[in-house]
């Protein structure tokens, strides 16, 4: 295989992406697919806010409204936020630790396809008899009774996508443990890598309970199980436990990488070493650990009893401590720094007050007695949008600007980026701040409309107007991306000029084998150290130039996923259509056969020879 870039036809490029195992290409696919789902989820959000803009509105029906809110939540969490973060992890983390690729390139590709096909499966429900309508939490007491196939699409779609995420988590863990460049000790790992590490550990232990919960739902609805049916001795609370044992770590799976991204941004644009690095690492690990101890705070009103509620209330509030440590460390990183207010830095600066607001309301809900008042009101909606949008989405938008040059060798326009930021930031607070008060005034979440005499008109209208501001911000971002792509001005490495970590040391466009020679890491912020010492070569290297071993591309991940996708339809129509069981068997057979081929066919990868590497210009 030649390593020299050639002009390829559309078919060849498509085949290349269908079979690629390169973490950088997979990152781009995650970004594109996640971005598309983000737009779909965003449109659903706009429909919600249009419906609630005025009292007694009939823009959408009550049933359709339920489907829209369910799909908005599910899409945004599983198909937009997580995959986009996975995209950044894939693009940045292996470069940050100086690795050739992730530990299991084949599984990386498999994880992506599983996510994509799971997402497509879920969204096909819109065209095949109606979307799921029991909320993103899909409590069994409600979802068992839901007619049609909406919930089945939810359960099977998430099962497929979740398998992809689980595989990705293991992959990142092994990559970080085994494939760090010489000198990259754990306590020299950049925060983005650390948070990827802890988030992956959370994925490893949080996704199996969801898998089991979804299986129970699938078995109950399609295969005659009785887990949640109380007339048969079942217990619907089991779903709530399993869902939240997954669901609470899930929010940390989302927010920890966001913390990592902001930690990078603060250090780069304050042009200072991250304040309190070791306490940041400690806080990250502690948040990850405590994240598993608090799931029942979502269930205070279920009636677990005062003892359980008290324990979970205290554990919940304890999480505020490591989070607070992080906030102070960021503030002290900016303190006395020589600050450059670029677009990523704008997002980072805006993130601190927004996220603190979300954290404070979180502690309020952590107080179990108060939660009885706040439960299922718009206060909850306001809270989780403050942490998810004010934390995760701001981080995603920041990372998009920060890492765009790393991923595409072009710079997004700073000017348009600032427009996006202000529209989005103002719109975000306008939409959600006022929802706290709607909640305190008694407006329940998930209602499809409200009466004119309830006094909620004005606040809901303001909230809806804010949503349009956010939409405008996103549209400007899309325009920005299109303009940048058309202009296509290459920027070279270290485009922000103040890059501190290894990923900024790599030549642009990034060669498919990453670093030609594995770099030697001489400290925290290793690239910064080299720059301070005036190293013209970029990095100190740990080894002489030698052959590089690379994995082969493979079409098997795609085939395995297609098999599961087909099997999903078989399971969905089980007991209803006569072709259901044959289709289920056929799909699983395709998957198993693909796995067997993978197992039986030796795949040793290939070598890029030293001579080819020396001749190549891309390296310099």
């Amino acid at each position, binding site marked *: 295989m030649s390593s020299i870039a050639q002009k390829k036809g559309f078919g060849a490029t498509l085949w290349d992406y269908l079979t690629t195992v390169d973490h950088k290409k997979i990152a781009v696919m995650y970004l594109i697919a996640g971005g598309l789902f983000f737009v779909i989820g965003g449109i659903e959000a706009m429909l919600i806010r249009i419906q609630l803009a005025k009292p007694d509105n009939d823009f959408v029906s009550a049933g359709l409204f339920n489907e829209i809110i369910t799909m908005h939540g599910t899409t945004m969490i599983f198909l937009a936020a997580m995959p986009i973060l996975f995209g950044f992890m894939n693009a940045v983390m292996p470069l940050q630790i100086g690795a050739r690729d992730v530990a299991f390139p084949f599984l990386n590709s498999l994880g992506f396809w599983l996510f994509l096909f799971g997402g497509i499966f879920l969204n096909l429900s819109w065209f095949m008899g109606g979307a799921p309508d029991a909320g993103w939490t899909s409590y069994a007491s409600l979802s068992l009774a839901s007619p049609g196939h909406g919930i089945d699409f939810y359960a099977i779609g998430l099962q497929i996508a979740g398998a992809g995420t689980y595989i990705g988590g293991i992959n990142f863990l*092994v990559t970080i443990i085994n494939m760090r460049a010489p000198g990259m000790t754990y306590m020299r790992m950049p925060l983005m890598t650390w948070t990827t590490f802890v988030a992956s550990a959370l994925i490893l232990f949080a996704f199996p309970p969801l898998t089991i919960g979804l299986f129970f739902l699938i078995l109950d609805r399609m295969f005659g199980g009785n887990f949640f049916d109380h007339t048969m001795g079942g217990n619907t609370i089991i779903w709530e436990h399993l869902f939240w044992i997954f669901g609470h770590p899930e929010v940390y799976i989302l927010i920890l990488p966001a913390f990592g991204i902001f930690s990078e941004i603060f250090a780069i644009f304050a042009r200072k070493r991250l304040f309190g690095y070791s306490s940041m690492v400690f806080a990250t690990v502690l948040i990850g650990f405590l994240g598993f101890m608090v799931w029942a705070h979502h269930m205070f009103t279920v009636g677990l009893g005062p003892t359980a509620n008290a324990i979970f209330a205290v554990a919940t509030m304890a999480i505020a401590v490591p989070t607070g440590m992080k906030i102070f460390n960021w503030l002290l990183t900016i303190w006395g720094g020589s600050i450059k207010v670029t677009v990523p830095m704008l997002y980072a600066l805006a993130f601190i007050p927004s996220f603190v607001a979300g954290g404070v309301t979180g502690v309020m809900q952590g107080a179990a007695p108060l939660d009885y008042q706040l439960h299922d009101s718009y206060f909850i909606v306001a809270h989780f949008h403050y942490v998810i949008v004010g934390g995760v989405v701001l981080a995603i938008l920041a990372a998009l600007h920060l890492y765009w040059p790393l991923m595409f060798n072009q710079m997004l326009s700073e000017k348009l980026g600032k427009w996006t930021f202000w529209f989005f930031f103002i719109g975000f607070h306008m939409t959600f701040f006022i929802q706290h008060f709607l909640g305190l005034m008694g407006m329940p979440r998930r209602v499809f409309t409200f009466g004119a005499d309830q006094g909620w008109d004005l606040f809901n209208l303001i909230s809806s107007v804010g949503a349009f501001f956010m939409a405008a911000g996103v549209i400007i971002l899309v325009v920005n991306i299109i303009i940048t792509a058309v202009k296509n001005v290459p920027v070279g490495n270290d485009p922000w000029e103040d890059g501190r970590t290894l990923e900024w040391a790599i030549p642009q466009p990034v060669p498919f084998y990453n670093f030609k020679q594995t770099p030697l890491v001489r400290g925290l912020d290793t690239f910064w150290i080299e720059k301070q010492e005036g190293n013209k070569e970029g990095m100190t290297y740990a080894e002489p130039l030698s052959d590089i071993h690379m994995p082969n591309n493979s079409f098997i991940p795609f085939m395995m996923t297609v098999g599961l996708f087909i099997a999903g339809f078989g399971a969905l129509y089980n007991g209803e259509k006569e072709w259901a069981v044959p289709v289920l068997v056929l799909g699983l057979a395709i998957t198993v056969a693909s796995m067997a081929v993978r197992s039986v066919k030796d795949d040793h990868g290939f070598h890029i020879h030293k001579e080819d590497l020396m001749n190549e210009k891309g390296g310099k």
Partner: protein
Amino acid sequence: MDLNKKYTPQTWPDHPEQVTMEGKNKFLGFWLFLGGETVLFASLFATYLALKNKGPSGMEFSTQTLFELPLVFIMTMILLTSSLTSVYAMYHMKNHNFKGMQLWLGITVVLGLAFLALEIYEFNHYVHLGFNYSQSAFSSAFFTLVGTHGIHVVVGLVWIILLIVRNAKRGFSLYNAPKYYTASLYWHFIDVVWVFIFTVVYLMGVVG
């Protein structure tokens, strides 16, 4: 490193499964995977305990009336022995005795099949008594927990058989050593899970 290089018992490394980068990654990745699997089974066990003996009012089935320890004890012994034979196989892999390893893996497969046959007989017996999957929450939880373990046994058997057949004529290499090693790890894990099933489901069901 040439993955197809032929080794002799003298040059064969002490830990052949962890010599190459791929081997190291597989070794660690598989341990992590088993960590996730542990949580998976923990969720199933918790659900089983919550739904144990729960069913529609007037249900005649309970752990006391249903389970018979002699059969399950035989199954346990068979599976524990198969774990031992897979240890022998790994011992021979360390000593570069390919035929010995294949033989002991073959015995492991036979024992695994025997276990599976008895499990199928057991399930069939329950269904004939009227204790089928949809009979109650208890039956769903029981069949799902023990059945998930059974599916793991099937996967393990297919995996080991594929390895035996595929490598029959090629002998050891640093490429297939990690594959054998992870397969045996998986087999041990299945065994450990069964020990818990035997204790929690059967022993505590009949005695406790």
